[in-house]
């Protein structure tokens, strides 16, 4: 069974997604939770095995029995084991969290369909992370995208429809650019397996100068930047996260954009190779640095003015994805370690914050920031969760957020980009401003807001696990050794 794990981790959620419409309303939620629990257990096992592997090796699984260039293969190394564990962990927690939330936000006949589409999206995102074949990446990207469009469009207000539609148009543009990138790559190398493409580049280094390869990299970057909502191309994200039902916002915000960032790392380092980044196209790396830095500063800046909590958190996500891309742009071990840590840190912090927004929607029916008033007295645990997650976003020491900033700053100083330090600090200050505004309302408001009591335990427990993760990852970062080894392996 252990050898079959890479395939089972994806097939089990897919199987559950297919069985949920047949299983009917009562058993649906049980199936979702069970499938994601099994997937999470499998991913943790894969993480342990991947970390035990010697340097440079990975767990390979040939699907259909055909070896790499002929068939499709799944590759699990330290980097994607990290992302897989984050994905399945957050998916399982959200599955626990969303039962009561969807019961209130989604119409009863649509709840079973919603669960099935949710599982498909989780499987799609995990499929992107684990695949070792470039075209298979595109197929699972489409699965994750189509499900995301509809999960967003299920929001109650009519703006959710238009938000889903805009994301569909921009997402499809991104996917088509990625398909073009794959076509250019296939034309120049003749194979579709990532490992094989890297081998072809190793054999024929003069390919790096051919314009076909440069265009392929450029289109991959732009396509994934669109999917990732990196700063200039982030138009769809605020509307999408704000209008979506709470369960979708929690899962999307915690995981979706970071999977595209992971795909960019996989393409940039494994497929094109490190040498290409240094010699091939320095222009794209500088462009990425500028986009990342502008995202880091503008995200929280825009977030300050917002009145709606979910839109505020969406703009802050635009900033946070800048941290993840900054590691790639800095191109050294510390910067990469910082970005890989941020996979977990941001998932925990942003997941927890959107759980608070969901709790607000559940109890007060609105996600206006003003509804946070008096939360400290009426719902102390949720208010504490808000405090811990906000501190992690600001990067207060002893929380997870600080470690990311610490490593990114170290990477920036090593790479000589000293200008990145003020960018990091400015974003921390802007984040502090809106975090303070939220905490001020929650703890120190004089009259009480619409929230009468805390959310039921089935919603509080998973969100508190996310909140605890912000602290635990701050004091004893479990992902650090894995992230460090992954960074060295890539360079």
């Amino acid at each position, binding site marked *: 069974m252990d050898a079959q794990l890479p395939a089972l981790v994806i097939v089990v959620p897919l199987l559950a997604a297919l069985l949920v419409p047949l299983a009917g309303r009562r058993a649906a939620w049980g199936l979702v939770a069970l499938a994601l629990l099994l997937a999470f257990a499998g991913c943790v096992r894969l993480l342990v095995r991947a970390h035990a592997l010697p340097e440079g090796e990975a767990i390979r699984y040939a699907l259909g029995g055909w070896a790499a260039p002929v068939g499709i293969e799944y590759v699990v190394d330290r980097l994607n084991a990290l992302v897989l564990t984050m994905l399945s962990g957050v998916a399982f927690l959200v599955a626990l969290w969303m039962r009561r939330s969807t019961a209130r936000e989604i119409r009863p006949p649509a709840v079973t369909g919603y669960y099935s589409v949710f599982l498909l999206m989780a499987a799609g995102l995990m499929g992107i992370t684990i695949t070792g074949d470039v075209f298979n990446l595109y197929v699972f990207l489409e699965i994750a995208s189509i499900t995301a469009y509809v999960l967003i469009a299920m929001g109650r207000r009519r703006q959710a429809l238009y938000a889903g539609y805009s994301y569909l148009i921009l997402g499809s543009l991104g996917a088509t650019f990625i398909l073009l990138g794959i076509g250019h790559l296939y034309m120049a190398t003749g194979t579709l397996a990532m490992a094989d493409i890297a081998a072809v580049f190793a054999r024929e280094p003069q390919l790096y100068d051919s314009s076909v390869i440069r265009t392929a990299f450029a289109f991959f970057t732009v396509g994934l930047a669109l999917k990732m909502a990196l700063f200039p191309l982030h138009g769809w994200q605020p509307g999408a996260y704000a209008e979506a039902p709470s369960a979708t916002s929690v899962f999307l915000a915690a995981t979706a954009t970071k999977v595209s960032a992971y795909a960019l790392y996989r393409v940039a380092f494994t497929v094109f190779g490190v040498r290409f980044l240094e010699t091939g196209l320095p222009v794209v790396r500088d462009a990425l640095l500028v986009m990342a830095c502008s995202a880091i500063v503008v995200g929280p800046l825009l977030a300050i003015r917002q009145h709606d909590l979910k839109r505020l958190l969406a703009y802050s996500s635009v900033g946070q994805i800048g941290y993840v891309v900054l590691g790639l742009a800095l191109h050294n071990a510390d910067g990469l370690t910082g970005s890989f840590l941020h996979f977990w840190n941001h998932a925990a912090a942003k997941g927890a914050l959107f759980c608070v927004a969901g709790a607000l929607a559940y109890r007060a029916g609105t996600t206006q920031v003003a509804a946070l008033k008096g939360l400290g007295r009426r719902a102390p645990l949720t208010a504490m969760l808000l405090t811990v997650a906000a501190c992690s976003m600001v*990067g207060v*020491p*002893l929380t997870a957020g600080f*470690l990311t900033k610490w490593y990114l700053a170290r990477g920036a*100083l090593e790479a000589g980009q000293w200008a990145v330090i003020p960018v990091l*600090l400015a974003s921390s*200050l802007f984040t*502090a401003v809106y975090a303070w505004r939220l905490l001020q309302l929650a703890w120190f408001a004089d009259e009480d807001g619409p929230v009468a009591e805390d959310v039921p335990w089935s919603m509080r427990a998973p969100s508190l696990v996310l909140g605890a993760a912000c602290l635990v990852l701050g004091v004893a970062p479990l992902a650090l050794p894995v992230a460090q080894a992954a960074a060295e392996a890539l360079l």
Partner: protein
Amino acid sequence: MSGAVPLLGGLDLAGLGPGLPPLVCLLGLLGVVAARRRPNLREGVSLATAGVNFALVLWLYARHRAGETLAWEGFSLAPGLALSFRVDALGLVFALVASGLWILNTLYSIGYMRAHDEPRQTRFYACFALAIAAVMGAAFSANLFGLFAFYEVLSLCTYPLVIHAQTPAARAGARKYLTLLLGASIGLLLPGLFLVYHLAGTLDFAPGGLLAGVAAADGTLVLAFLLLVYGMAKCAALPLHGWLPAAMVAPTPVSALLHAVAVVKMGVFGVSRVVFHVFGPETMARIGADDLLVGVACFTIVVASLIALAQDDLKRRLAYSTVSQLSYVLLGVGLGTGAGAVGGLLHIGMHATSKITLFFGAGAIYLACHKTRVSELDGIGRRMPITLTAFAIGALSMIGLPPTAGFVSKLFLVRGAAADPAGAVVLAVLVASALLNAAYFLPILWRAFFRPLPAGTEAGVHEAPWPCVLALSLTALGTVGLFLGHGPLLDLARAVAHAAFGGAE
């Protein structure tokens, strides 16, 4: 590490050593939150925590004097980034002063809170316990990251204390308090941390200074020094002192906590850590940072005293007096002579005991007759003899007259300034500030004792509740006591000075 102290069976508590005080305070925090339903138990737990904590610090001091090196690795977050603790002389100075006065402050706040019937007292005591945990953690932390982490935790957990009254004025004051402190720490201290790590590759304090052997341009080192000093806005060096007067909106026990016991002392302690164990006296002298520090200190002393003169509100006047008194410590530490360092470090203790007495006095006056302005204090000396005599002792100590503790540290400062080649300016500043202190403290005493009570207000004025008066008199006695026997503070200060400057006292 000496034999395991079998306190709780197998758990090797001695191994925790310096880690114990913060842990005990955190237990106290949990105790307070657990006992939120029963006020008496809750206050009992707070008092007990403060007591146990002080006992632990004394125990650590005793074993430190016996020559043991106590350390605890704690958590290693990342390579080069660890929360580890170690007991040393400088840390003990700060810990002793803070934990000692903490007991009195808790006692005082029990009386004040009960008399004033303040709402949300559980949150008050919980943040109190968290603040002392942060102070203990910072005192014994063995590297710059630990100091920075506990510095931030203290800023965040004192914010609910400052905003306790939750009136619009309290909100505005607390907002300024947090903006300045958090802004300075994220905006200046954090980049300083990154720069130091980038230059030295490690953050652990070293006796001769962490950056001693580092080959880096002087300009970068000065930049790092400025970032670290001004980053620790809690030392209230001008121009980053604005948060101190703004925090006057807090209830008096919190002001006492802010001004005398924890927050400002954390700032000054941090700066002395930076001077002795990050840069080291030789590097400081080489890059001219010590003259810079002395300059800033002198400027702050004079200007803050002048502003204090103009303040009519009693607590604001005391706040600006704190701003100037703190710079004595910076002055002492920056002088670069053994005596100066001893004077500076001693002043931490002396200023703490005297300023806490003044604040307790101000609180008692407010409790007794709701008077906050200096001009209203006519003739209350006769009605509130104990409070006002204690207030007088505190005031004398501030000015630095013999029978009180302030005189001792100022004496060392004067000897340190004399030993320093360019000490003439410093001497002039010391004398001038003594006069200025007299100028803004004596009128209060003169008004309270020698001016008749305004007609018809006799009935309203009487002594504050007994816990406040008890705490008040204890600290007054402490101020005088410290003058007679300097006790452990002097030995520890000398140990630090000896380690830094070798020999010359």
